C-alpha cells in the first residue's frame, strides 16, 4: 500500500524543521521513505513540489538556499516558524472555542480547529464545553456557494478572476472579469466586492448568482484596493432598505404586522381599516402585493400603478 499523504507531509515537515543546515532534494529523498518509493525522478519532483506547497498552506516558512556547490537546499528555520508567545486565560480560550465552531465550510472549519490546536499545543488552557459555560447562543456561518472557496483564495492572494454571473433578472449569465477585494456574509448570504474590469467600476456580486467555475487569471491587480469596501450599503439599496420617499396605504385591521412595525405612523380609520405611512424604497410594490386584498395603496400614484400591474398579472392567469 502506498504511504499515506499525511505521513509523507509530516516527515517532510519534521526533516525541514529538524535540520540546522539546508537539505538538498537528494538528502530529503534519502530520508523519507515515501519519496524513495516514488519511482521516477519526475514523479518524485512533482510530489515534492506539491508537498512543499501544502506545508506552506499550513503556515510553514520554507526557505530555499543555494549551497556553495550550486545545489538548492531547503530548511524551515525554527525562529521564523515559532509562534510568538501568547497567553490566553480560560475565559478567552472558551470564547475562541465558541468562535472556532461557527464555520460550516470545510476548509475554514479545518483551519479554525487547526489554529485552536496550535494554540492548545502552545499552552492555551482547556475550557469546559464552551456552550455549557458560556452563552446559550450557537452562531453558524453558512457557506453553500461553490464559488466561495476559490474566491476566498483569490481575495487572500490578490489574484484576478473570471466567472459567469447571472444578474437577478437576466436570462443569460455573462462573463465578468473581476479583481476580488473582499467577501462579506450578510443575512446568511455571501457577497463579493471587487473591481469589475469591463465596466471599469466597483461592483458587488452575490455568490449564489455565479454560475460555473471561478477561474484565476494571471497577472496582478490593476486598481488599488480601497481601505474601506462597503458591501452592506450596496446590498441594502438592492433590498430597498434605503427609502427615499414615503407611501400612504390602507391596511386591514390586524393584518400586516411587518408593515406596522416599519410604519412611520398608524391611524385607525374605524371601519376595519387602518391608514399607515411607510418608507418607500425599491421593492416596496412586490412586498405590498404579498398582502393581497389586505392592502390598498393610496399614494403615490406610481406605486399604486405598480401594485395594480402586479395584481393584474396574477389575476389574469
Amino acid at each position, binding site marked *: 500500500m502506498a504511504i499515506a499523504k499525511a505521513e509523507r507531509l509530516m516527515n517532510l515537515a519534521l526533516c525541514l524543521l529538524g535540520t540546522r543546515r539546508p537539505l538538498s532534494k537528494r538528502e530529503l529523498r534519502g530520508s523519507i521513505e515515501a519519496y524513495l518509493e516514488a519511482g521516477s525522478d519526475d514523479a518524485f519532483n512533482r510530489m515534492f513540489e506539491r508537498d512543499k506547497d501544502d506545508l506552506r498552506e499550513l503556515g510553514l516558512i520554507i526557505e530555499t538556499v543555494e549551497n556553495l556547490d550550486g545545489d538548492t537546499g531547503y530548511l524551515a528555520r525554527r525562529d521564523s516558524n515559532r*509562534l510568538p508567545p501568547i497567553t490566553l486565560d480560560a475565559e478567552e480560550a472558551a470564547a475562541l472555542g465558541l468562535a472556532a465552531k461557527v464555520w460550516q465550510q470545510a476548509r475554514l472549519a479545518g483551519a479554525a480547529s487547526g489554529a485552536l490546536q496550535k494554540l492548545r499545543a502552545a499552552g492555551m488552557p482547556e475550557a469546559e464545553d464552551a456552550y455549557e459555560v458560556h452563552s446559550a447562543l450557537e452562531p453558524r456561518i453558512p457557506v453553500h456557494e461553490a464559488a466561495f472557496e476559490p474566491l476566498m483564495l483569490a481575495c487572500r492572494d490578490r489574484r484576478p478572476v473570471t466567472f459567469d454571473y447571472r444578474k437577478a433578472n437576466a436570462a443569460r449569465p455573462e462573463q465578468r472579469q473581476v479583481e476580488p477585494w473582499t467577501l462579506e456574509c450578510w443575512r446568511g448570504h455571501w457577497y463579493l466586492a471587487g473591481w469589475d474590469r469591463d465596466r471599469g467600476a466597483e461592483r458587488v456580486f452575490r455568490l449564489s448568482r455565479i454560475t460555473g467555475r471561478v477561474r484565476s487569471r494571471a497577472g496582478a491587480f490593476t486598481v488599488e484596493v480601497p481601505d474601506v469596501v462597503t458591501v452592506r450599503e450596496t446590498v441594502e439599496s438592492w433590498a430597498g432598505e434605503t427609502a427615499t420617499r414615503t407611501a400612504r396605504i390602507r391596511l386591514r385591521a390586524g393584518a400586516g404586522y411587518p408593515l406596522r412595525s416599519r410604519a412611520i405612523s398608524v391611524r385607525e380609520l374605524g371601519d376595519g381599516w387602518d391608514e399607515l405611512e411607510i418608507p418607500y424604497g425599491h421593492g416596496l410594490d412586490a412586498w405590498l402585493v404579498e398582502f393581497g386584498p389586505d392592502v390598498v395603496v393610496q399614494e403615490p400614484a406610481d406605486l399604486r400603478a405598480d401594485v395594480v400591474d402586479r395584481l*393584474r398579472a396574477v389575476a389574469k392567469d
Partner: protein
Amino acid sequence: MATNAIDQTRRMLSLVTYLRERPGAHVQDVARAFGISEDELISDLDVLPMCGTSFRGGDLLDIDTDGDRIWWHNPDDVAEPLRLAADEATALLVAARAVATLPGLRESDRQALLRATAKLETAAGEVGAASSRLSVTFESEGGVFADVDRAISERRRLWLRYYSPARDELTEREVDPIRLFAVGHTYMEAWCRSSEDRRTFRLDRVAEIRLLDEPAAPPELELRDLSEGLVQPAAEDPEVVVEVGPGGRWVAEYYPHDSAQELSDGGLRIILRTPDPASLRRLALRLGGEGRIVSPPELARSARQAARAALAAYDEPA
C-alpha cells in the same frame, strides 16, 4: 478515513508539541483538548511512529499508546509551537469578530472575545492581515435575544406574540426555549406548549416577549443537526411546482427546493415541498408576472382570487 491529509498533518504537528509537555497523557483528555474523537487520535498515533527526521537512522518518533495513555520515549525539541498559517488566522479572527458583533452576546463573553482577538492579531503578525478580506455580520434582535438567552440559562418558560408570514397573523403562545442559533438571522428552537411540538422561531418575527415564572420543561429531545440546513422538508410533504422567468430566479435562492430545472427562456422550473402549500400564496402574489404556480391548482386559484379581490378595491378591472 474521512480526515483530509492537510488537516491531519496540521493536527499531528500540534500533537507532537502537546505530547512533549505531557508524558503519559490520557487518550481521552488529549482527544478532548484537540476536539477530535479518540479513534481519530489513535489513527494519528499510528502514523506518528513512522515519522521523524530520517527513517533509516532510527530518528523516528518513538510514540506509543496502550489505548489509555500515551508515551513519547525520545522527546526532542523539534516540537516547538508553530506560527499560524494565513487561513488559520483568518478562520479564527473572522469568526471571533463576527461572534463579538452579536448584540445578544453576554458582555463578559464579548470582553473575553475582544481580548482574545487582540492577542491573536498580535501573535498572527502579518498573516493576520488577510483576515480583513472576509467578514461576517450576524443579525440579531437585541432585546428579544437577551430575554431568550436569560430564559435558557434560568430555565424559564416564555410567552410570545409571534408573527407567522404564512398566515399573516400574530399568535400568542407559551414556549420552553431549548437553544439559540444564528444562521443569517437569529433563531430560537423551542418546545411549543400550544402545538405540543418542536418549533423554530425567527427572533425578528417576535412582536412581544415576556419571561414567565413557570420553569421550562421541554421534553428530552435530540438536537437537530443544523448543518443540513434550517428547513428540512419531510418526504411526505406535498409538492409544489413553480415556474419562473428570469426575473423570478431568486426563488431558487430563497426557498430550499428538491430541484430547479433550467427553462429555455432563462427561467427555472422549481420543485419544492412544504407541509402547508397554502403558505406559498404570498410567493405567488409576489411573483406577479415573473412566475406562476403550476401545481397544486388550489394554490394557483387562491392567489388568483386574492389578486382579483385586491384589484376590486382599486376600482380596477382584473
